[in-house]
């Protein structure tokens, strides 16, 4: 793990967006009264004429973005994951997804690591919702390096996309000098023959920690960073199943409809069989509390991942 201070992926987003603004005058940014929190304020400061605060009206914001995209602009739309993908789901589905418009839904405060605000603000269904929309790309970056590169990749990609961002500062695990983000291509961060942990978002760092713990017990675990949930890197899943014989998925999302579902679907679809155990929010709402305490309470820890691997191998 790199020795830099932890950074929230929403910070990476705001910083990169401000750079993109200087490089491409088609880039416009929309927010719904949360510019300080989603970090689009960094873009707003430099390009106030291309930053539109829509007020607390997410449905309108998403459809406005559709109109902007239909007229050739590249809109980045931000709010909390709950309101972007929840409140405005149908606008994303019908005004953005169906006409396949070039709108980037970049939502911060995803998952339970939102912390003290509690269940109403902790979206653990966003990946499921966005993944169900035909043609929608879904990306969940693991750290600052990956988030920054993902923002750029999505700006270049023509079509609707969802970028999942977090509030909590997370460790930087990818070297910005050598890392190269490729949409839809999973990254194997560590090789191993006994099991594979396929992780996404902030669970990737925790998966690496788990692999380290397990290595000390003589268990060699492959760690795959599945930053793109859709389109899923099916090849990475199939080779994990074939070569390591057991998979643990790790996501800060509901066990229903997210990474676990996507991995199981891909594997069964490819005619490959291996047991898959989920580390996820087990069909529950969140609650108030400090982010790290919540991650522990809901079992989204390195220890929980290691324990799933041990249980699988003991069978």
């Amino acid at each position, binding site marked *: 793990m790199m020795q830099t201070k932890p950074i929230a992926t929403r910070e990476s987003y705001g910083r990169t967006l401000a750079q993109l603004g200087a490089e491409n005058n088609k880039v416009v940014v929309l927010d719904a009264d949360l510019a300080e929190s989603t970090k689009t304020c960094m873009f707003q400061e430099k390009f106030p004429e291309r930053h539109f605060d829509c007020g607390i009206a997410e449905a309108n914001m998403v459809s406005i973005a559709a*109109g902007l995209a239909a007229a*050739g602009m590249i809109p980045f739309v931000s709010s909390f994951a709950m309101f972007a993908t929840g409140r405005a789901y149908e606008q994303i589905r019908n*005004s953005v997804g*169906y006409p396949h418009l070039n709108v980037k839904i970049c939502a911060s405060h995803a998952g339970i690591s939102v912390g003290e605000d509690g269940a109403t603000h902790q979206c653990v269904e966003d990946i499921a919702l966005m993944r169900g929309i035909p043609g929608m790309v879904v990306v969940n970056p693991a750290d600052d390096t990956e988030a920054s590169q993902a923002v750029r990749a999505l700006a270049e990609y023509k079509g609707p996309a969802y970028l999942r961002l977090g509030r909590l500062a997370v460790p930087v695990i990818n070297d910005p000098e050598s890392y190269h983000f490729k949409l839809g291509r999973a990254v194997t961060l560590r090789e191993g023959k006994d099991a594979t942990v396929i992780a996404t978002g902030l669970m990737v760092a925790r998966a690496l920690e788990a692999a380290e713990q397990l290595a000390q017990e003589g268990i060699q675990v492959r760690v795959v960073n599945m930053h793109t949930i859709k389109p899923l890197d099916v090849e990475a899943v199939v080779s994990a199943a074939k070569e390591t014989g057991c998979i643990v998925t790790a996501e800060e999302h509901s066990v229903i409809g997210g990474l676990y579902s996507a991995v199981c679907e891909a594997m069964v679809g490819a005619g490959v069989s291996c047991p898959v155990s989920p580390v996820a929010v087990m069909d529950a709402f969140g609650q108030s509390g400090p982010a790290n305490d919540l991650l522990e309470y809901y079992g989204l820890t390195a220890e929980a991942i290691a324990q799933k691997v041990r249980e699988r191998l003991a069978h």
Partner: protein
Amino acid sequence: MDKQTMNHLKRMANQVRQDVLSEVYSAASGHPGGSLSVADTLTYLYEVQMRVDPQNPSWEGRDRLVLSKGHTCPALYAVLAQKGFFDREELKKFRHLGAMLQGHPDMKGTPGVDMSTGSLGQGISAAVGMALAAKTQGADWRVFAVLGDGELQEGQVWEAAMFAAHHKLDNLIAAVDNNGLQIDGNVSDVCSVYPIDEKFRAFGWEVFTADGHDFESLDAAFSAARQVKGKPCVIVQKSVKGKGVSFMENQAGWHGKAPNQQQYEQAMEELRAAAAELEV
């Protein structure tokens, strides 16, 4: 408006109405009532107000129209076909499996359709986004949005209205097709949206009223709206649901129902008779 233009618009709108009936009849489904009430407006906008090029439907400099009341697309399709955006033969395949003309407008598949709509309330926001894009790019094209009166019950319409006035989008003109009826009955009985004009005025819009079936009246309103600076405009136009077909007029039941063969023939006969009178 000179007599010749007026007569041309009347003939064209009559053909649009006949096409609407034929589309819905051949699909055995669709929305004739609202299509007939909005037929004159769409005819007028595409023929008089809008800068478009049917040979180059995605021309960047064109004016845009968002049919926010997307279910009345049979009228839009009829106008676009007459303008030459696509082959009139397509009208016969409206709502058929694999056809270009979907039950609600699809911008990806249909030349001339500027926005996919159908889920009420979203089209006006998209139109606002387009108007904002024109302003941001310093372009001079304009955006027209056509809404239903029942559609005003969608809260998103007012989110869009607030935003458009805040950003002084004087390149946006909305038209509310106020035929007074929605699926479940009178708009004023179901959940009143009235007074429409005062609501928009309170939201910072310039408001005009018009008779939605009188081209002189429409022309006066839209021409005046063109001159307004610093705010968006809305034309609240009184119209008749099912206009032009005696037994469909002012009947909520014809919102989303296709005529049977006998009803279709009677409707076409009425429209042809009206057209014959125009030729004199």
